[in-house]
């Protein structure tokens, strides 16, 4: 996984929400809107690190029968349909265990996945996954949180791909404001990290993106996008309205991440 390293936009989608085919369409839109990496979330029955928006999306996707192997294969299908940017599989640990750690990496590799993020696998428990990650060359993305403190150095120094900074205490979700201390936190993380440092959790406004971009190498946007998908989901599922919905999604995304990008003018074109 090679990353530009600055002003990165990393969107998050729940695989299968509201339907696997639509997830591919959305990924293509995001790529067109300038995404640098796609985080493909595997829906889970007990998403401990997630707020209500992603919980609801997971429930919708589980109703579609989405599973971890399916989600990985969906990444493979994205490639076939033209997604070129790196794809990270975001999954809780338990499904990985049930699939089998080796099978998981093998299947991910086979489907040209570029990395793995397991939110409930902290550094101390990650040794077996790290080993397989090294063997397969699929980076395991690490997270640091405002509570990490003296753990930051240890985690940052071993980070692969990019380092995911959790903006604030809490689960995923949209937040009106981000904590004041975030700049110092990011500065400390950057001091130890050899890979790009991105920020996620709560980012839902272009003003937040504008401020953050000075202090990190990119942003992860999850709940805000998933919420938009939820809003559009009926239209995304109907052939006649799908394209309009995809356009509106793109429009929403471009506005949100405009501070990161130059020349993103699709939205204005649509308006015209």
């Amino acid at each position: 996984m090679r990353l530009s390293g600055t002003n990165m936009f990393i969107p998050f989608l729940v695989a299968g929400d509201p339907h696997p085919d639509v997830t591919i369409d959305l990924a293509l839109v995001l790529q067109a809107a300038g995404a640098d990496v796609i985080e493909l979330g595997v829906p889970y029955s007990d998403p401990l690190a997630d707020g209500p928006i992603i919980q609801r999306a997971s429930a919708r996707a589980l109703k579609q029968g989405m599973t971890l192997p399916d989600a990985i294969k969906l990444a493979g299908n994205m490639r076939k349909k033209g997604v070129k940017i790196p794809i990270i599989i975001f999954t809780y640990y338990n499904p990985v265990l049930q699939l089998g750690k080796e099978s998981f990496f093998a299947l991910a590799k086979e489907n040209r996945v570029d990395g793995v993020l397991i939110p409930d696998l902290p550094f101390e428990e990650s040794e077996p996954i790290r080993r397989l990650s090294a063997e397969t060359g699929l980076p395991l993305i690490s997270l640091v949180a405002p509570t990490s403190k003296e753990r930051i150095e240890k985690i940052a120094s071993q980070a692969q791909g990019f380092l995911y900074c959790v903006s604030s205490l809490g689960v995923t979700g949209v937040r009106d404001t981000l904590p004041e201390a975030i700049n110092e936190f990011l500065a400390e993380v950057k001091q130890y990290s050899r890979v790009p440092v991105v920020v996620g959790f709560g980012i839902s406004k272009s003003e937040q993106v504008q401020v953050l971009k000075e202090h990190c190498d990119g942003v992860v946007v999850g709940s805000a996008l998933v919420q938009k998908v939820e809003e559009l989901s009926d239209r995304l599922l109907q052939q006649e309205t799908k394209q309009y919905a995809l356009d509106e999604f793109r429009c929403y995304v471009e506005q949100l991440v405009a501070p990161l990008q130059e020349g993103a003018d699709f939205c204005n074109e649509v308006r015209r």
Partner: protein
Amino acid sequence: MYNVPNENGRFGEFGGKFVPETLMRPLEEIERALNEALIDASFREEYMHSLREYSGRPTALTFAENITKQLNGARLYFKREDLNHTGAHKINNAIGQALLAKRMGKKKLIAETGAGQHGVAAATVAARFGMECIVFMGEEDIKRQELNVFRMKLLGAEVVPVYSGNRTLKDATNEAIRYWVQHCDDHFYMIGSVVGPHPYPKMVREFQRIIGDEAKEQFIKREGKLPDVVVACVGGGSNAIGMFYPFLEDDVELVGVEAAGKGIDTPYHAATITKGTKGVIHGSMTYLLQDEYGQITEPYSISAGLDYPGVGPEHAYLASIGRVRYESVTDEEALEAFQQLAREEGIIPAIESAHALAKAFQIARQRSKDETVLVCLSGRGDKDVQAMMTHLKGASEHAFIGN
């Protein structure tokens, strides 16, 4: 020598800390505080003082005169955790954790609850130790355990209904953990059983072993020997581990009893060790009920306190090394034991405890008269009486409660 968990919180291959990074430092802080507290005589004295002066410990050891006669087998004894303040063993742990929270300077408690017993215990200690308390409870359990909801509110706790999943204990735990992630700077999460990430399984065991410590001493004093069999019900497993722990290195048969619901060959049970597979739930590697893709499935039991798809990692370990035998008991068998205890001994047990009783009766019946069986009567059944009456009435409109 039995010496788990190791410093990584592992009971063999079970346990550990599978939590978001945000919680790692809070967990480390708790671990540090716990380890200090456990070797601090003044902490222990404070804990024992509260157990004695506030919760009324030691709880009694009661010989089951009538049922022993009826079964015509082993002599049956109950460790009476139902006599604790608030009516179950949960208070032992709540007192311990509240004192630890106080030691750590935290004045706000978070708790999840299923049957409501842990919620009541948490609300109680919050009141007693001058803390705030927020309790997460599945909406389904709120309906099943109305009395306990009232009690928590009266005790000044905020009860937050949880609408996700099956709206029972698992979902309440998810919500409690999410809330904790957001408030870990000034809140202490008080888990109600020997589950969750390290150091919780160890901590809760340390605060529940008082059950077994007392029972062992009382039993030897009463019978002049150790019991042959010790039985306890297993939801998360806290009363069971508390009861078993001091007997682990003795020549005593230990039996954990899970909820078989409508039968372990139906989808409606909560027999985690009996039917579950290895995986991660609520931060811990253990046995759990899940589908082939690792989605946690919904457990079922008549008992809100056993209606949990995971189990404490130490139980998974004890099962894996064969030290404890885990069996299961159906709703129907538990209901039968519930009634039997009320009628024969004048004790209305918690429906959770009735699972242990049902199994203990089965075992005692098959043993000789010079053997003894000790059961952990983990709680009283006041909270269940109303629901059980409905069940019983439903089951046979005429057979029961004629008057």
